[in-house]
């Protein structure tokens, strides 16, 4: 396995007490594989990714338990310096908002070139040539002329390509993309997702795609982990989950998105709201919103039951859910 996250716990210290953002998350990605982490805001999907990347703000954040194994090393026990070497060369991250993730006062060529100068000790001139090559690689038109431009001179889609180029610079084995296309228009989103998928194939990288968009997931992912209130509630290969979800939350999500290809009348709506992380309901965190909830759901936290060899569901009644 390229990356394995085991029973990860993260909490945030806030003025009003501790918020349990991640409560025992386990997932794994292999080389050449795309794992989609699906969840709504506050589900802990981004915090998990930040913990993996080692860019979680601590404090207020704190990793209170678990293991993050990358290429058979536990990242949480590494020294900060070794950790830094893993970032960039081993794994890289793509953010949602490229404009604020890029430094506005440096040209994109300088920012891309810096990766090579710092990690590979290249000369200024060689680093610049590499930057142009990378910009070509992510299909930025007229790369050689635009290498001296500043981030704000590019459109949203082009900036996201520069982010991708930066992530690719040191040919990492794993890319974590946190909502990479959420801020983009659909036609541009399609371009960027296509590029990402193509590069993943070409470099045989692992890809962790963090998103809330069921459509994007269906388009690119091999397997999915669905998160709710800091836990993984369902994990499965992508084809299985859309056909037969094994968790009522996944089912609710699938039923609540309107479809382009049909016109239904009323949408299914999951009642209520996602819980506050400071007061996660006891038992199954989803029980107050669940149509199938019973007494046991209010008291017992469901473990991730094995549904089949490569599927898991954190629902006491996953069998019922599978049968619809």
């Amino acid at each position, binding site marked *: 396995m390229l990356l394995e996250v085991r029973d990860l716990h993260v909490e945030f210290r806030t003025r009003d007490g501790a918020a349990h953002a991640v409560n025992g998350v386990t997932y794994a990605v292999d080389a050449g594989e795309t794992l989609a982490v699906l969840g709504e805001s506050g589900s802990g999907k981004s915090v998990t990714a930040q913990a993996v990347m080692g860019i979680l703000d601590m404090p207020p954040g704190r990793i209170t338990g678990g293991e993050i194994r990358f290429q058979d090393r536990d990242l949480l026990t590494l020294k900060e310096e070794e950790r830094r070497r893993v970032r960039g060369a081993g794994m890289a991250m793509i953010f949602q908002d490229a404009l604020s993730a890029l430094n506005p006062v440096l040209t994109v060529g300088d920012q891309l070139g810096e990766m090579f100068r710092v990690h590979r000790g290249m000369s200024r001139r060689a680093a610049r040539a590499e930057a142009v090559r990378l910009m070509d690689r992510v299909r930025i038109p007229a790369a050689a002329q635009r290498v001296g431009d500043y981030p704000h001179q590019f459109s949203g889609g082009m900036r996201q390509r520069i982010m991708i180029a930066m992530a690719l610079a040191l040919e990492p084995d794993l890319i974590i993309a946190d*909502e990479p296309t959420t801020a983009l228009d659909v036609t541009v989103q399609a371009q960027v997702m296509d590029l990402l998928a193509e590069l993943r194939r070409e470099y045989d990288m692992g890809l962790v795609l963090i998103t809330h968009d069921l459509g994007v997931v269906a388009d690119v992912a091999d397997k999915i982990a669905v998160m709710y209130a800091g836990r993984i509630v369902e994990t499965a290969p992508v084809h299985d989950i859309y056909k037969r979800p094994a968790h009522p939350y996944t089912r609710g999500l699938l039923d609540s998105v309107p479809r382009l290809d049909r016109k239904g009348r009323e949408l299914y709506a999951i009642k209520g709201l996602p819980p506050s992380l400071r007061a996660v309901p006891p038992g199954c965190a989803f029980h107050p919103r669940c149509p199938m909830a019973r007494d046991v759901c209010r008291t017992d936290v469901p473990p991730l039951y094995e549904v089949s060899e490569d599927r898991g569901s954190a629902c006491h009644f996953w069998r019922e859910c599978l049968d619809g």
Partner: protein
Amino acid sequence: MPDQQQPYEPERAVAGTGMGGGMDLAASEAATLEPDPERPDGARPQDRPRSLWSDAWRDLRRNPVFLVSALVICFLVLIAIWPSLIAPGNPLSCDLARAQDGPSPGHPFGFDGQGCDVYTRTVHGARASVTVGVCATLGVAVLGSVLGALAGFFGGGWDAVLSRITDVFFAIPVVLGGLVLLSVVTSNTVWPVVGFIVLLGWPQIYRIARGSVITAKQHDYVQAARALGASDARILLRHIAPNAVAPVIVVATIALGTYISLEATLSYLGVGLKPPSVSWGIEISAASPYVRNAPHALLWPAGALAVTVLAFIMLGDAVRDALDPKLR
């Protein structure tokens, strides 16, 4: 799309990572940290409704900096109104024979160069300082925020003209301006000083008010009110002013302290209050020639001045911490 697109929100900045600016990743994950009134199970909320002001007040009450500075300020205001409460003597009755004498029973601070009781004069000097501070701040705040709000709200030509005028005022050196303007005044009251400070101080508040009105104006709730057919006056008073007033209050509180020290400076230079009025600036000025022989005559009024200015600046800081949404 959903998720991380909410703009900056006060209570969401709790777990900011500083990596993604306004669309901060961890911050948005912390989105559900907000008070969650309608629990999914429909439980009744038990907390009282809270506004920004009551939240700020709750914070202030627990802040030792605020408590100390508020206590000092209350005490100052009290002795400014009734100085004889703690200093029953007459500040103008002096005995040259006791000039520069040190502390003695009944005269804890000693005597100044004119043989006046330093304790009595220091206590009585509070009135001038507090009057100048409070009145000048009120004047500056009213003038600056009204003009600033109008300029920020309506923009256009008035804004351009007013903003250029403030630039001119910023270019005037305060002390020099005071020396020139106040030297022609003969009245020996605090009012010329107050007037002078208002004249030179309003551009500072004007800028703050204009800026925060422009920020508040861009929010959708202003558009919503406009779409309902609300008048300009209503939008300005009901929607913009309450959302733009916090920075003005903070800056005005801090400025109050500096105005008090400005009054002392001008009085020291002989263009503010003049003897026989009693003020800390006058005391400091009178005591400075013989500071070697009678340092107490300088130290007490100067100390009172320093404590007062500090108290207002600390109060302003505490109020800013309580009102600044970035910290909540």
